[in-house]
């Protein structure tokens, strides 16, 4: 028996998806297309005349040492954020997995930072690290390190890495904890009987079994570090000192809205778009396969 629903009119189905299509077109496809279009033009400083320049914006971009530096910075930043937020989250999750009493309180508290806007977390850390009044800066001075994120590029980078990591740990923690609780207890017990130390059990049994979760989180964290950290950089270092923390998303803003180089900024957005597409493709290709091991 045919159970499918038939629409009498041919246009009805299109009407039903029209709202979704409209939203996608207006808010996603159109701006993206605009970015593509603008990446091929140059504009005068007042926005009165535009000239089509083909791929010249991209050529300029990739021969610009500041842009190449920004790529480098972004890679370092993303790698540091992903690595530290994942490892801290894994450590916390592994410990939380053993907690029996008060576990829900512990988990809830750990999840809080995730609810904070990146800009807020930036301000928090900025105050903590403030060279004159920050408590962490003070502590560092006590152990003989002269902290100044306004002067030292390295210090500034550490600051944004810390802030970005702190915010992402909760998210990773949730996934790791779920992943850990999915591993049957008997596997760990079997490994214990097989003579593996707790440390070895973790690295030879638990960690490989978590690999689907870990892989998923690596991609998510990279995407986060690449694209969701604008507010954080904006409120803390504003890309400085001397471009030391000017990551790609921040440079798009600086060049486009501060420097008024609309074409160059658009070209940078197109590059970022390509990166998103690449990361998403990787994610779909590997993560969507349920079992990696």
């Amino acid at each position, binding site marked *: 028996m045919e159970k499918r629903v038939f629409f009498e009119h041919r246009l009805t189905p299109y009407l039903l998806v029209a709202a979704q299509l409209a939203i996608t077109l207006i808010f996603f496809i159109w701006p993206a297309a605009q970015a593509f279009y603008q990446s091929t033009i140059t504009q005068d400083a007042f926005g009165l005349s535009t000239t089509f320049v083909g791929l010249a914006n991209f050529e300029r971009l990739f021969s610009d040492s500041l842009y190449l530096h920004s790529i480098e910075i972004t890679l370092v930043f993303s790698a540091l954020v992903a690595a530290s937020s994942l490892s801290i989250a894994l450590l916390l999750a592994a410990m939380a997995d053993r907690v029996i009493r008060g576990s829900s309180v512990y988990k809830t508290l750990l999840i809080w930072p995730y609810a904070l806007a990146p800009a807020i977390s930036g301000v928090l850390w900025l105050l903590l690290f403030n060279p004159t009044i920050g408590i962490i800066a003070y502590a560092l001075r006590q152990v003989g390190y002269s902290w100044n994120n306004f002067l030292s590029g390295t210090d500034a980078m550490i600051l944004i890495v810390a802030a970005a990591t702190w915010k992402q740990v909760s998210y990773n923690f949730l996934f790791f904890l779920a992943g850990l609780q999915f591993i049957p207890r008997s596997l760990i017990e*079997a490994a*214990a*009987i097989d003579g*593996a130390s707790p440390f070895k059990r973790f690295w030879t049994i638990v960690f490989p079994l978590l690999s689907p979760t870990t892989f998923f989180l690596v991609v998510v964290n990279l995407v986060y570090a690449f694209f969701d950290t604008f507010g954080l950089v904006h409120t803390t270092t504003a890309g400085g000192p001397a471009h030391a923390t000017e990551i790609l998303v921040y440079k798009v803003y600086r060049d486009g809205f501060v420097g008024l180089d609309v074409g160059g900024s658009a070209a940078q957005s197109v590059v970022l778009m390509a990166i998103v597409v690449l990361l998403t493709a990787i994610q779909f290709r590997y993560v969507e396969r349920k079992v990696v091991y």
Partner: protein
Amino acid sequence: MAEIELNGVTKAYPNGVVALQKVDLKVADREFLVVVGPSGCGKSTLLRLIAGLETLSGGHVLIGGRDVTRLEPAQRDIAMVFQNYALYPHMNVYNNMAYGLRNRKTPKPEIDRRVRETACILGLETMLERKPRQLSGGQRQRVAMGRAIVRSPAAFLFDEPLSNLDAKLRVQMRGEIKRLQRRLGTTGVYVTHDQAEAMTMGDQLAVLRDGRIEQKGSPLEIYRRPATAFVGGFIGSPAMNFLDGRIEEGGRKLRVAEMFSIVLPGAGLPEQEGRNLTVGIRPEHFKINGNAASVELPVELVEPLGGQTLIEVLFGKKIVTVSLDGAIAIKSGDRIPLSVDPAQLHLFSLENEVRLDCIAA
């Protein structure tokens, strides 16, 4: 090769549940002990305490004369086969078996030799490269066995290893495990809730109930002389029938369900004169057309199994199962004359369910 000894083993959980209550148990070297009991009786806890996966609240565990009460599972020289097999899903069969040896820093050639030897015993030679998910239930079961065997431990512990298999495979693996254990001569403790597994596999049987050992002995001993009504009802299939009884005539006669009397063997139970008790009769001990003491009863239901016939009979107000050999031409509604050999009656006290034995004449 070692004997296992449990002395006053107690396990109480923080929430107040007492899983085991002063359990004393001894498994002789090379012996295969099956611990059987209903779910929640503490049998898995018992096994986990021997393995060291849980800590004791009291008492001692000795393996091969060595007190292992405070030792880690790895130091106890035991191997365990889990209900869900607990194979490492990301390792192939070879690595699953080699894992324990590698952790014990066994030289590589030695590992290779032992893994291949074990695979050979279990017929897994062609599966060594496969991952657990590429194996059937029976093959996984064998790998789990292999992982235990390969280390040649002092004792094997089995935690309901066959309950995830289908009925036919279960019977087959039952034999395989038993043969393997005999061949290797390793002491084994096997936990199950299935009385058929318990009867067929164990050299010795321990029936556990509510954290206490109700009876320990060879399967046939327990079948023939169950120490309590619980053991009688638990061991044997179809289960033992229980009827009300009363001792009469100076302990010489037993009145069953106010329907008929049986002369007890020997001098009977003079001390129980006039008292009520529980009468246990195994379905297979009923006879049709027996002696003069037979009683005619209406048939409720007939279940022909081919080799034997199960008949449900209305005995007063109670349904009683009767098992007769062969296919018998009886249909429900018929009345059949049944009798029982008095020597095969099991009598239990009403107060504490303990077995009462007739005094020899």
